[in-house]
């Protein structure tokens, strides 16, 4: 029995080493669950207690096979990860380490970006809060009436709470954006710290969610983690596919979407046009930052850019920190 317990704990530890958030509480749950079901249900006892998001299922399956390997896990699971990560036509398994590149400057820039403030528009929510005017707040009015002998002399009011809209950043990290992408990722990291619900994605030929990677406290660490996750860094560009995948992630509705890309697209312009139109309908506002716009003579002649532009609300450059600050005011 003790051996069995050791085996289960070793399995949980192996999962932790693979990055799953398996705390002691979960391990206890897992052992209790394993004891409550017959031995051939061990796979499910673990999956129900140690896994908490679909992306973790493939990792779980792999570790399970490696450590406990009793029964082959049941039918393979189609995972959301694959929806986010587009079926890319040409997968570039090229990741880049930024540890050695212009370290000081990047870190300095990251520190400056911390001061950046983005004024995202608000929307009314259904939650109500105390206000000076608005609808009657009966609960508080009644409470106050006790001070005046049951007569509601002092009345209280409440009004709809206002809340910042979600900001969704979509960063082009393909080859043509190489000069800008690292700084833009740092920009995303700084921006995301303002609100836990904001999201960031990178794309080249496929879309990758980097929100979690960017949560790292240290900018260098954040860059490294993002680079680890984005396998097509400095590859080709398929903006239409990326926008399409983004629209499927459920985070776009009612949000402010900021796309950072030079608009040089190898995909079909027709696809990009259709997907941008859809994005425009879903999102509250679509902002496009194109670093090429830095040049005063720039005109959006690239097919992709021309296709996307009619569905963009704000078109700006975002090639340096000053222009990013201007973006903050224009949202």
């Amino acid at each position, binding site marked *: 029995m003790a051996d069995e317990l050791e085996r289960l704990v070793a399995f949980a530890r192996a999962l932790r080493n693979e990055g799953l958030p398996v705390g002691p509480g979960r391990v206890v749950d897992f052992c209790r669950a394993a004891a*409550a079901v017959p031995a051939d249900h061990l796979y*499910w006892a673990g999956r129900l207690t140690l*896994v908490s998001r679909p992306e973790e299922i493939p990792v779980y399956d792999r570790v399970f096979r490696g450590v406990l390997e009793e029964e082959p896990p049941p*039918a393979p*699971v189609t995972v959301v990860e694959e929806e986010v990560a587009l079926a890319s036509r040409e997968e570039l398994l090229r990741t880049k380490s930024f540890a050695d590149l212009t370290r000081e400057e990047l870190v300095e820039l990251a520190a400056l970006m911390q001061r950046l403030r983005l004024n995202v528009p608000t929307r009314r929510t*259904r939650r109500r809060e105390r206000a000076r005017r608005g609808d009657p707040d009966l*609960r508080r009015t009644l409470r106050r009436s006790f001070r005046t002998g*049951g007569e509601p002399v002092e009345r209280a009011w409440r009004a709809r709470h206002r809340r910042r809209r979600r900001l969704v950043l979509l960063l082009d990290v393909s080859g043509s954006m190489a000069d800008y992408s690292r700084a833009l990722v740092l920009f995303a990291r700084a921006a995301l710290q303002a609100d836990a619900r904001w999201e960031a994605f990178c794309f080249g030929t496929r879309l990758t969610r980097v929100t979690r990677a960017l949560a790292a406290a240290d900018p260098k660490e954040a860059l490294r983690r993002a680079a680890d996750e984005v396998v097509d860094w400095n590859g080709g560009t398929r903006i239409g596919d990326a926008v399409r995948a983004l629209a499927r992630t459920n985070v776009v509705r009612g949000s402010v979407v900021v796309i950072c890309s030079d608009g040089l697209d190898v995909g079909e312009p027709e696809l990009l046009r259709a997907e941008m139109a859809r994005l425009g309908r879903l999102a509250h506002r679509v902002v496009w930052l194109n670093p090429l716009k830095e040049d005063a003579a720039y005109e959006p002649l690239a097919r992709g850019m021309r296709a996307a532009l009619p569905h963009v609300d704000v078109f700006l450059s975002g090639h340096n920190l000053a222009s990013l600050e201007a973006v903050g005011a224009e949202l």
Partner: protein
Amino acid sequence: MQFGSVEEVERALSGESYLPDRGLATAVYLAVAMRRPLLLEGEAGVGKTEVGKTLARILGAELIRLQCYEGIDSAQALYEWDYARQLLYARALQAGEVRDHVSELYGPEFLIERPLLRALRAGSGAVLLIDEVDRADDEFEAFLLEVLSDFSVTVPELGTIAAAEPPVVVVTSNRTRELHDALKRRCLYHWIDFPSLEREVEIVRLRAPEVPEALAGSVAESVARLRALDLAKRPGISEAIDWARALALLGANGTDGNAGRETLGWALKNRDDLERAQAELFSG
């Protein structure tokens, strides 16, 4: 209220026209045995809500449903006082005397029970279904965590109300946002995937007995092909059932041909998706 084994859960759910896979049956078994909330995630239309409803029927328990939405707060989820009645009552008591009657004013007859409080009072006699928790804001999630942790709440005027034995809790999420780890840690987690082709045929036949076997097979096959396309909204099981019903009413034998094309709107509810599916499935 307890199941003897995972197989028993499987049999019981099947008996109520819900065909679970092994993982879901194990999840339900453990949730009831360990008295832990069961968090179900999966795409729309895979039958997450149905699990809670079916479970209530099997256990002979009262189904208490809390539909979450943006801005939901404790007044809608837990309890609220009936202010209008309180005011009238206070008036009836005449000014001046109210002070002695405050405790009467906050008596049980003025308390409006909302789903969470009702579930706590019902205890093990209830199945609490917290539906689409991802729609509520995260403050509400924190509040929910508190309730689900010790299954007790404190109403300042009445005192602490605790469940003698916690109810069975099923939480569903469509994953429009990531839930907090703290809440997930309280729960058993199960991702409900689309069923296999054979299983889907069984489900359609079970839910819509008027659909002939061949038609059910054809619908399941088409739906599987639609899911493989890159669509904005992949059709769920309920869409498959609706589509099969519609085709059966029209007397069609399968999804190919005109009847299939004309009823495709039962499976896909998005114009871009419809066009794409028309092009890829019905062009050849």
